[in-house]
């Protein structure tokens, strides 16, 4: 079955039965164990490392320190490489670093026979530091005289961008405008993918092979080459099934170090199975951001001028750097448009905290929390209908972004809002929940979003695909794009069946990417694969189909144009008559004694388009005021992601995103002590919601047909995680009259604000 059918996931059986092989399942039993020594200061220098005691421990093979690694700085962001130096990612770290930039920085590594030996060896290494005061807030890092965290970046500003569309100050002069300001703050959070980032590496024929749980095998290969200063072709990266990534694995994490470690032990296999605690501290986080928004609004609700000032806390290393807050600002400019002026300032600041990187939504959950809170606050302050106010100012079909040209080719936003509004019972509940008293109070809230599809024109969008015919008429589908748990393999199989005419069960998806044989594609991120890689797939499938028809034409003496492929059979179009099965055709192609033909197809799609997807979240909450508890009574996400390739897996994708939104709204945040040490880097203290904290999650769709999508489809991977937090915040506001401008809305914060608001009196 092709596009639009809810077929079971092609990997469901393997995964449910535990047969699917993940990186850890593939680790050779005799692999050596690598373990990393992390700094116990947040800011400073490693003066010396004494490894002599550790080396004496039986079973320790090798210890390498920040003084031994190649003197090469490399970038880690999972962006396609840019041939223009000005667009290249910031290269600001070495494999191990003498200059310590956060509490937990990588300063040495041990290779030992087993984990216990390695962990004992780590404890025997003596470190002497030169300590600097930790710069744990953006204010501290930006203060005059603050020591640069990176020498090449004196003011600790990784990047700052300001621009205006129109003239903001001038626009404010219009008489009768209401100027409303708001300050909002979002925390650093972690992806919490089930499978930790892990890898193992060995050498073969003078080349390094790295098997890794990554979203971006081709980028990992390039960065390993860069980090080790070796030709990229000397590196082979294999990506098996992976247990989630959410952007953390859109980053080159420890693969370069792992590749380096194997070279130190003569190419023997070394595994780097980092712990959950290390994952929290030493991989990547979602950037915490601080927003200052200003809106000048006419009494009728039309926004005349808008301003954003945003500071993004980068932590110790650049990773994706300013690209993420740029995406926040782009969304600010795109979702709503001011009639006269939009002014923006964004600043990414190095601090001595764990590094921010890509995470599902890429800066957009942050801005949508701020923006949709702000929009609600404006509506409340001016007595505007919050939905009508949003609709009046929101992006319409045909919108062209004035800076990057991204165009709104299709929008179902209004229908999404209408569906969510009806589902939650918005109109009656907005009224009936007014003027409540007592400890338990209910409220409804909503939020909307827009999200682009892929990264064009900000970065390169390219993808490729290969189809290979088997001797029995079935085919292998090989994508450079990666399955990371989101269901990519399944919808690729559906697309391939749709366009080739093969039955879906005759399409065998090769789930593993191996940079030696897999066609090139940068990987899973930016909700791009269904759209961008889908185009490569569609072109390949068309080519493949044509080759099959040409082959049939040769064998049957009928014009290719007169034939079609349906259900893995060649038919005559005019009569609908069955001509030959693909199985028989393949047998002839491979084995006929006069002329054999190996049939494959491969295509690259260089994508030069983009489109917006949309959606809305509506939530109903009950707040237990004296206990500071929010209970989600009902919640729905309604999405316009264009045409759905597989409605059921689309729904599953939304469930996962909504769950992330719940944690973002109410409980998740990384906490640090005064020395920059992460306090809650584990699943006990970092509060990911459990199933008992999660209500039934309602999902609905508005299916538009996007003219630019390969099958009318638009982005769906990241959007589900975006609108939940502000919808819940706005519902709590409705219930209690208290506005939370900082997430997560934890019980303690609630108690503090409810107390200030006088809500706890008499209890």
């Amino acid at each position: 079955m092709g596009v639009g059918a809810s077929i079971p996931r092609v990997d469901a059986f393997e995964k449910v039965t535990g047969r699917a092989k993940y990186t850890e399942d593939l680790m050779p039993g005799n692999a050596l164990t690598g373990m990393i020594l992390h700094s116990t200061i947040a800011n400073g220098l490693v003066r010396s490392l004494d490894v002599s005691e550790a080396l004496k421990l039986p079973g320790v093979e090798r210890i390498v320190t920040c003084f031994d690694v190649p003197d090469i700085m490399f970038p880690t962001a999972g962006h396609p490489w840019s041939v223009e130096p000005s667009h290249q990612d910031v290269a600001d770290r070495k494999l191990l670093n003498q200059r310590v930039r956060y509490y937990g920085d990588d300063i040495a590594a041990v290779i030992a026979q087993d984990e216990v030996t390695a962990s004992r060896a780590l404890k025997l290494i003596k470190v002497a530091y030169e300590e600097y005061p930790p710069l744990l807030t953006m204010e501290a890092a930006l203060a005059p005289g603050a020591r640069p965290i990176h020498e090449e970046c004196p003011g600790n500003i990784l990047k700052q961008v300001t621009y205006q569309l129109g003239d903001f100050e001038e626009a404010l002069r219009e008489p009768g405008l209401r100027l409303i300001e708001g300050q909002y703050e979002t925390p650093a959070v972690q992806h919490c993918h089930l499978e930790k980032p892990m890898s193992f590496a060995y050498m073969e024929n003078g080349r390094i092979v790295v098997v890794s749980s990554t979203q971006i095998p081709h980028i990992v290969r390039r960065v390993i080459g860069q980090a080790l200063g070796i030709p990229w072709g000397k590196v082979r990266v294999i990506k098996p099934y992976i247990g989630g990534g959410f952007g953390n694995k859109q980053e080159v994490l420890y693969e370069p170090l792992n590749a380096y470690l194997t070279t130190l032990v003569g190419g023997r296999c070394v595994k780097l199975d980092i712990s959950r605690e290390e994952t929290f501290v030493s991989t990547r986080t979602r950037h915490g951001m601080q927003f200052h928004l200003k809106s000048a609004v006419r009494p009728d609700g039309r926004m005349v001028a808008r301003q954003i000032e945003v500071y993004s806390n980068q932590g110790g290393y650049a990773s994706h750097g300013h690209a993420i807050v740029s995406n926040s600002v782009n969304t600010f400019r795109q979702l709503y448009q001011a009639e006269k002026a939009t002014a923006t300032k964004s600043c990414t600041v190095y601090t001595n905290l764990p590094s921010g990187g890509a995470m599902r939504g890429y800066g957009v959950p942050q801005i949508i929390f701020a923006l949709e809170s702000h929009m609600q606050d404006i509506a409340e302050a001016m007595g505007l209908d919050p939905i009508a106010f949003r609709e009046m100012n929101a992006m319409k079909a045909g919108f062209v972004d004035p800076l990057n040209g991204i165009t709104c080719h299709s929008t179902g936003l209004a229908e999404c809002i209408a569906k969510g509004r009806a589902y939650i019972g918005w109109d009656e509940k907005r009224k009936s929940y007014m003027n409540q008293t007592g400890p338990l109070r209910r409220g409804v809230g909503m939020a909307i979003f827009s999200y682009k599809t892929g990264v064009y024109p900000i970065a390169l969008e390219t993808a490729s695909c290969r189809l290979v015919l088997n001797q029995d008429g079935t085919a292998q589908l090989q994508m450079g794009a990666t399955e990371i748990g989101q269901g990519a393999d399944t919808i690729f199989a559906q697309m391939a069946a749709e366009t080739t005419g093969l039955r879906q069960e005759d399409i065998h998806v090769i789930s593993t990417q191996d940079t030696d044989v897999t066609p090139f594609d940068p990987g899973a991120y930016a909700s791009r694969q269904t759209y961008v890689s889908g185009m490569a797939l569609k072109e390949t499938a068309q080519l493949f189909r044509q080759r099959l028809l040409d082959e049939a034409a040769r064998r049957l003496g009928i014009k290719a144009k007169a034939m079609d492929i349906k259900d893995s059979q060649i038919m005559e179009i005019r009569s609908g008559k069955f001509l030959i099965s693909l199985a028989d055709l393949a047998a002839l192609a491979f084995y006929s004694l006069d002329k054999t033909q190996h049939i494959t197809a491969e295509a690259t799609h260089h994508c030069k388009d983009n489109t917006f997807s949309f959606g809305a979240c509506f939530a109903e909450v009950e707040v237990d005021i004296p206990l500071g508890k929010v209970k989600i009574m009902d919640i729905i996400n309604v999405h316009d992601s264009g045409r759905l390739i597989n409605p059921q897996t689309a729904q599953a994708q939304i469930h996962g995103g909504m769950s992330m939104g719940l944690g973002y709204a109410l409980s998740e945040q990384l906490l640090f002590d005064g020395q920059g040490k992460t306090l809650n880097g584990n699943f006990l203290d970092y509060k990911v919601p459990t199933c008992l904290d999660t209500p039934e999650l309602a999902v609905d769709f508005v299916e538009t047909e996007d003219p630019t999508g390969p099958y009318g489809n638009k982005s769906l991977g990241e959007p589900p995680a975006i609108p939940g937090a502000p919808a819940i915040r706005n519902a709590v506001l409705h219930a209690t009259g208290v506005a939370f401008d900082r997430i997560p809305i934890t019980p303690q914060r609630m108690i503090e604000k409810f107390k200030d608001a006088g809500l706890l009196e008499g209890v």
Partner: protein
Amino acid sequence: MFDIERYYQATDIQDAVAALCADPKAMVIAGGSDVLVEIREGKLAGVSLVSLQGLAELKGIRLEEDGTLLIRPMTTFAELTADPLIRQRIPMLAHAADQVGGPQIRHVGTLGGNLCNGVTSADTASTLFTFNAMLEVTGPAADWGGKGDPGDVLLAKKQIPIAEFYQGPGKVALGTGEILTGLRIASEDYKGYHGHYIKYAMRNAMDIATLGCAVNCRFDAACGHLEDLKLAFGVAGPVPMRCPETEAALKGMAVGQALNQIGARAAAEVKPRDSWRASKAFRLQLVRELSRRALQQALDFARQEGGAAHA
């Protein structure tokens, strides 16, 4: 892979005590749900363990002749919650044990481990404080004096009130070679009582208590007055604690008045601290609110049963 120096599976209580005497640095492992976590974290890396798994003498729940409930320490949370004696006589403990972690941990973690780890957040502890639980500790007899073959160790038993068992955060009254072998609740401490435990945490499962509140009361026949009240908290101080002043003040009070007063009185008596997990002010608010809600729930239970309390 866990960094464990030595693992010894004891065959009975005597053997366990002997093994602990032979290696005073070794520690007991029961379900392991605290011990293994700490080994992995490195706090207990390199430890030697003496396992109590499978010792029949340390399992089970029964009623002694005088009506005393005897619970052996290797009873898991799931077993506690499912046990008919517990459900009938002290349903509050069945409920408290059911608040622990999630289903897996409740099938692994034991009551003994929950008390011997000495932590203030232990979900069964505050409830057991309100039942005046007596702990039976078995160890080497004083007159054995550690001489001779540890295998010939003489055993001695002592009874320690739960409130004395807790000596400080993570510290309980267990000396070298001593293990917890039983827990008793006398009939006068449960007969006629209705109680309720509220666990307040950041999540509805898989979390430790920000505050635990246990209220256990006896009402008069009309449920109009409090005849007796026992109030205990977890995480309101360094170890689980009772609130004797509040208890004394509320004894004999009309329930309406007691409901009005319990929160403020308890808040004046507890000693929660500020930590990054929760501020003192926040915990005090929880003390006020939860003590009232737990009392209300106990009253509701009593009224549902028409005053007919635990048989």
